[in-house]
């Protein structure tokens, strides 16, 4: 239980044109834990999620990042992915020329437990059913012409197929209808079943957070973590918003 | 500002006859028509120019004789160089005050609004009448910054002679095409501009070209060097009265944009409809430099016009904004060429073309991305509007990509005025002609907003004139 899965220390991030975004973040996610990162728009939540996979749009200006106690600060995006970190994108891109099926095959090859032909097919079919996705999507180019909801489902499909050690979910539920949110929750619940995996949820949808097992909550305001706590923080924000925290951050800046 | 708006309202009253008046040719010195070594030597002798220039002229003549006319583009068989007078010297010396310009020539430029524009909105003006510059002046405050704006022939014997020799026809060599060679042999007049490092010329300089003599050619050479970190906006205007014989314009513009420098080159071309406009324009842009072309083509019988940008240094940028309006009897083949020759260079091409009353407009472009141009980006957008079913519009773009980590985008569309839009406007009380003119002006708006205000007004006027009587 006490094994650290993901740890960032004194973690500072700027855009490539040197605008500071995140300031000295410290955060540890242990195996079996689910954390939530909340904050007002523009706080840097998505930047944090994306930087965990070394998005070239950002650069680390200070600090380091550890995964299973290994320093991965210098590792490239694909190497971090191969270690078992998964990012569910808030706005997944279209990639014409690559079919969803070929893409999944290639991605699964890099997973910790690669699946061979038959097993791959079997698992894929099961998950398609769970997510209510049609078979014919597999032959279409990756995300090309997919609706917002379909893209989110395809992200979830990848999460469940790849079965990574650590999942970072960026606004996984935004833009989904009630049925689709229920499907997502089913997927997340399934992922949470083991003690070995960790999860970071970036969200401001109180509704889905209330229906999940949450271990810790972090509040990010203006690029700084201004509060850490348990799920009671979710309740507070639900009632009062981020005002208290924003004032706090304001004070901190003086 | 109030000055400019007064001026605009007077331009609104303009009509075609503004451009279409002729002046009697008094005491002018004209060489025989045609092209021979003898004529080339005579032009050179009159100009008292350095020996290398005569060599250059003679070599160019030889190249001219060897090169073929293009096998693509509009038919120019109606142009017979044997009937073109390559050199017409007006009866005057170059003046620095309008009062010293002969009355009839001064009157021409007065009617075109040039001295007025100089007073209100320009930092310097050059005026060419047939083969020679007749007027050249630059504001004192701009001259004090070290900015040179003078006749290129005059500069050939001044302190910048060496700089001119180093740059003259180096971007557009005589071997480039047959009419570049012709230019190299018989060029006459034109301007030289040098902007020293980190100098910002805040208000535009303008050259105006007027071809008065029937059956003549105009072959002015414009050489502009914008040094490191400097900024300049240069405006070129051209017009001529209409004659029944072919006139030829084969000018050449060479622009050198230094590191971090910025040059905008705007042209409103309104040659008369007997003109063969075979003009060559080229810019070379160094690291972090920016070149902007704004090009309006309204006149000429036939045009071959493709201003080219060579993006030679990292992060160099170019923007080309063009409009071409081909009316009755016109075949206007216009566009641009871009050569991406360094990493991280970018270019944006945006053009509009209109065809009406049997006019032919062709958009032609070539975008080349060389092996060196990693991470470069280019986008081309061209829209054509057909105003009736007697006219023609062709789109002939070309992309040559030799580097893989680049982004090349292209889009083109062609069609006619949306009937629904016309109906909508007419339902609000506009006549059909008004509605269509409004829509065409809207179509041209992205271009006119790139022009200085008074030129935008002039352009909208030209469009209104072209649209007049277009219904029924």
């Amino acid at each position: 239980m006490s094994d650290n899965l993901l740890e960032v220390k004194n973690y500072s991030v700027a855009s490539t044109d040197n605008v500071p975004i995140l300031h000295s973040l410290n955060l540890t996610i242990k195996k079996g834990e689910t954390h939530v990162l909340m904050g007002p728009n523009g706080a840097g939540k998505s930047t944090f999620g994306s930087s965990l996979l070394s998005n070239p749009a950002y650069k680390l200006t200070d600090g380091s990042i550890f995964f299973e106690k290994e320093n991965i600060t210098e590792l490239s995006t694909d190497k971090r992915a191969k270690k078992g970190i998964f990012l569910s994108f808030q706005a997944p891109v279209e990639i014409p020329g690559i079919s969803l099926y070929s893409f999944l095959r290639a991605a699964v090859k890099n997973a910790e437990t690669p699946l061979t032909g038959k097993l791959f097919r079997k698992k894929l079919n099961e998950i398609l059913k769970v997510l209510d996705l049609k078979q014919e999507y597999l032959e279409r180019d990756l995300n090309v012409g997919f609706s917002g909801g379909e893209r989110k489902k395809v992200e979830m499909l990848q999460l469940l197929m790849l079965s990574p050690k650590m999942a970072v979910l960026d606004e996984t539920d935004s833009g989904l209808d009630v049925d689709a949110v229920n499907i997502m929750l089913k997927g997340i619940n399934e992922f949470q079943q083991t003690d070995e995996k960790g999860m970071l949820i970036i969200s401001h949808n109180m509704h889905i957070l209330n229906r999940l097992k949450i271990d810790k909550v972090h509040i990010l305001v203006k690029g700084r973590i201004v509060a850490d706590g348990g799920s009671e923080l979710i309740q507070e924000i639900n009632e009062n918003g981020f005002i208290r925290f924003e004032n706090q951050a304001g004070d901190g800046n003086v | 500002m109030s000055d400019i708006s007064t001026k605009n309202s007077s331009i609104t009253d303009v009509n075609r006859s503004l451009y279409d008046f002729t002046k009697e040719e008094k005491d002018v010195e004209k060489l025989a028509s045609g092209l021979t070594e003898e004529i080339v030597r005579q032009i050179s002798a009159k100009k008292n120019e350095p020996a290398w220039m005569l060599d250059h002229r003679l070599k160019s003549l030889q190249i001219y004789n060897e090169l073929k006319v293009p096998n693509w583009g509009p038919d120019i068989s109606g142009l017979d160089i044997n009937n073109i007078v390559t050199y017409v010297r007006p009866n005057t010396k170059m003046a620095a005050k309008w009062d010293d310009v002969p009355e009839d020539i001064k009157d021409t430029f007065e009617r075109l609004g040039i001295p007025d524009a100089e007073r209100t909105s320009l930092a310097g003006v050059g005026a060419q009448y047939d083969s020679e510059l007749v007027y050249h002046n630059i504001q004192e405050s701009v001259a004090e910054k070290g900015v040179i704006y003078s006749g290129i022939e005059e500069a050939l014997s001044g302190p910048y002679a060496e700089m001119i020799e180093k740059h003259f026809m180096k971007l557009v060599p005589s071997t480039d095409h047959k009419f570049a060679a012709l230019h190299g042999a018989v060029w006459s007049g034109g301007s030289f501009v040098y902007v020293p490092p980190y100098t910002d010329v805040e208000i535009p300089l303008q050259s105006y070209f007027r071809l008065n003599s029937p059956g003549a050619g105009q072959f002015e050479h414009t050489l502009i060097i914008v040094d490191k970190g400097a900024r300049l906006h240069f405006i070129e205007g051209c017009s001529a009265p209409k004659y029944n014989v072919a006139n030829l314009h084969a000018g050449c513009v060479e622009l050198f944009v230094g590191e971090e420098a910025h040059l905008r080159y705007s042209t409103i071309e309104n040659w008369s409809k007997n003109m063969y406009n075979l003009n060559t324009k080229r810019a070379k842009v160094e690291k972090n430099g920016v070149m902007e072309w704004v090009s309006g083509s309204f006149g000429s019988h036939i045009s071959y016009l493709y201003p080219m940008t060579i993006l030679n240094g990292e992060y160099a940028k170019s923007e080309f904004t063009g409009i071409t309006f081909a009316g009755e009897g016109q075949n206007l083949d216009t566009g641009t060429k871009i050569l991406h020759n360094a990493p991280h260079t970018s270019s944006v091409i945006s053009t509009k073309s209109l065809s009406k009353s049997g006019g032919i407009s062709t958009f032609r472009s070539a975008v080349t991305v060389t092996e060196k141009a990693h991470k470069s980006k280019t986008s081309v957008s061209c829209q054509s509007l057909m105003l009736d079913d007697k006219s023609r519009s062709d789109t002939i773009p070309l992309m040559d990509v030799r580097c893989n980590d680049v982004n090349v985008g292209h889009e083109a569309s062609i069609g006619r005025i949306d009937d629904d839009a016309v109906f909508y406007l007419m339902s609000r009380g506009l006549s059909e002609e008004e509605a269509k003119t409004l829509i065409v002006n809207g179509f041209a708006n992205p271009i006119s907003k790139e022009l200085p205000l008074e030129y935008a007004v002039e352009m909208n006027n030209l469009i209104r004139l072209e649209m007049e009587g277009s219904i029924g």
Partner: protein
Amino acid sequence: MYTALNANKLPVLTWNRFNVNSKELHLSNEPDSAVTPKIITDNDAIKINDNRTLDDIVFSGSDKKTEAYILKNASVTKSIIVPQNSTLAAPLIFDLTLQPTDKLTGIFDISLEENSSANIMISVSSLAQSTAQYADLIRVHAANGASLKLTCLQLLGSSAVSFNNIVSRLENDAKISILQIPLGAGTALASATADLRGYHSSASIRSDYIGHLEQDIDLNYVVRHYGKKTLSDIKMTGLLSDASRKTARGTIDFHRGCKGSSGNESENVLLLSEKARNKSVPLILCDEDDVAGTHGAAIGTLDEDRFFYLKSRGIDEKAARQLFLDSAVSRLKNLLPEILAAKIDNYSKEVLFNESV
């Protein structure tokens, strides 16, 4: 001895220095090798004979000299006549297998009588090592209300020369949908022209390629709109890897009188190698105002966002390239019946994915 051709001519010329106005090609004057096409069909209604049947139909075509060469040299001539009102659902397949040094020239005259429809495929293949030469001329006449799906698959070996030519003429309400897959041959030329003569006739042209090794691909597509309310759509999609080169010409030509017509042209090129070279010349010629023509092209590599997405799933650049190839191959396979899909599979195993190459 050979015949020198300036093939795949651009309908309106542009600057010569870019070398796109036509493709210089030398075709051998040696007599053809004996190759018998395998014909796969399960339909008796269709009539096939060994004579030319469309000599009297006027096609605007592409290059006259090329056509003359093929008419003179052809050793295989097939005429396919689809009778009035008949519908051939199952594809009629001509399967041509060439020996490594074969030379073959073919003519296929396809007549679709009124309100008939057919699905015809012509496949040309050889072993991976081949210096074969293949040239054909496929002429299509679609009478009122007829429709044709025509697929040309070319899988010749890496030193082969191939030139696949399609000319077509469509009458009222006729439709043609062409798919060309010039996957093989060191020099691969493909051309298709459609004359939309009839009212509301339409043409859709798809071209799919995967440039590899030192392949030189040269494409030329022209749709001429003559009839009122005619429709066209030209789509070229491909990737260029290794030191492959490709030139694509696509022309939508609106002739005076084709009122209410619309044409669309699009091209997507993914450059997967530093040595790959691409030229694109998309023309719209317009002599009529009541039309709508559009063209779009995107040439280049994946942008950073997309690469980040792939990398976030553990897929590095090399794997991404492979993925694009895999997806392109499987997309093509999905477009074809099993027998031809199997050929593509073979070709991709032997040539495209052969690591030893």
